[in-house]
């Protein structure tokens, strides 16, 4: 399951990278844009992975227009699933609660997930080289896990790539964001958990621009 809201610049930027690099190789359900709401999220909780972009707090994870789709008060069936929340602060409370509820493993962030993006690229966010410094490693983490590799391998690949990007970044604000995210990344649960390997699909062309308004 993928949840990819597109209602503001941060969700547009982060979801854009998953639309470009993850959606083509993931299986439905894919809740993208206005379909990313609580009801379908809870009805369609099938598959072995939940990969979500969205605004978050220590105990809540949001979908389109910041509708809370996942919180500690009502956790859906996550037994044996790998959960990746590309969001803020969910590693504080929600991540551990998901593990307690039976999730195989969880990757998220214990503080804000921050980056610098180019607002002028909101319709083609996957082409944003500034956002790529943070979203590239996160996307590659997800891709490694979708290759059927252990969750820990994807997580470590993300940390290493964040470090490499920070080392070569000249803009100190962008560099600070990369380092901040690296410090706050968290892996919980079974590090050797895996999902079923998805076929590798590399599309030669990027998807069409996202025409939904922000």
């Amino acid at each position: 399951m993928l949840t990819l809201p597109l209602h503001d610049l941060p969700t547009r930027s982060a979801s854009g990278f998953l639309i470009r690099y993850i959606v083509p190789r993931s299986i439905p359900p894919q809740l993208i844009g206005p379909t990313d709401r609580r009801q379908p999220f809870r009805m369609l909780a099938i598959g072995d992975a939940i990969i979500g972009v969205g605004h978050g707090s220590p105990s809540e994870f949001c979908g389109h227009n910041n509708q809370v789709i996942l919180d500690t008060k009502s956790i859906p069936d996550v037994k044996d699933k790998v959960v990746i929340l590309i969001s803020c602060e969910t590693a504080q409370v929600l991540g551990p609660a998901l593990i307690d509820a039976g999730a195989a493993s969880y990757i998220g962030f214990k503080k804000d997930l921050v980056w610098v993006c180019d607002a002028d690229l909101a319709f083609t966010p996957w082409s944003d080289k500034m956002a790529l410094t943070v979203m590239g490693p996160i996307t590659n983490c997800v891709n490694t896990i979708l290759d059927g590799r252990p969750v820990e391998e994807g997580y470590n690949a993300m940390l290493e790539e964040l470090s490499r990007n920070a080392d070569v970044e000249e803009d100190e604000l962008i560099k600070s964001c990369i380092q901040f995210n690296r410090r706050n990344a968290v892996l919980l649960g079974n590090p050797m958990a895996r999902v079923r390997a998805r076929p590798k699909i590399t599309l030669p062309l990027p998807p069409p621009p996202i025409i939904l308004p922000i």
Partner: protein
Amino acid sequence: MPTKEFEKLKEALRKTPTPEARKEAAVAFRRYRVVQLAKGKGSKPTLVSLGYRKPYPTAVPVDKIAEELERNTSFYEHLREIIGEEE
């Protein structure tokens, strides 16, 4: 190697967020951006986060960060968290 302007910004962000400290940080940020803009970056760089119910905006154009620093204590502390800590 951090630039002199960025070091001054970090120094300014270490202070208790009084109105004077926030103003000082805003001035330091403007100076830092002048240097960065000279290097050339994206057309509308914006600092974003995926926070929910935050007392600061989740998208702040980089050329507005100094103003936000000056008026919003929570944003000052948010930026301090991001750039104030060393790896």
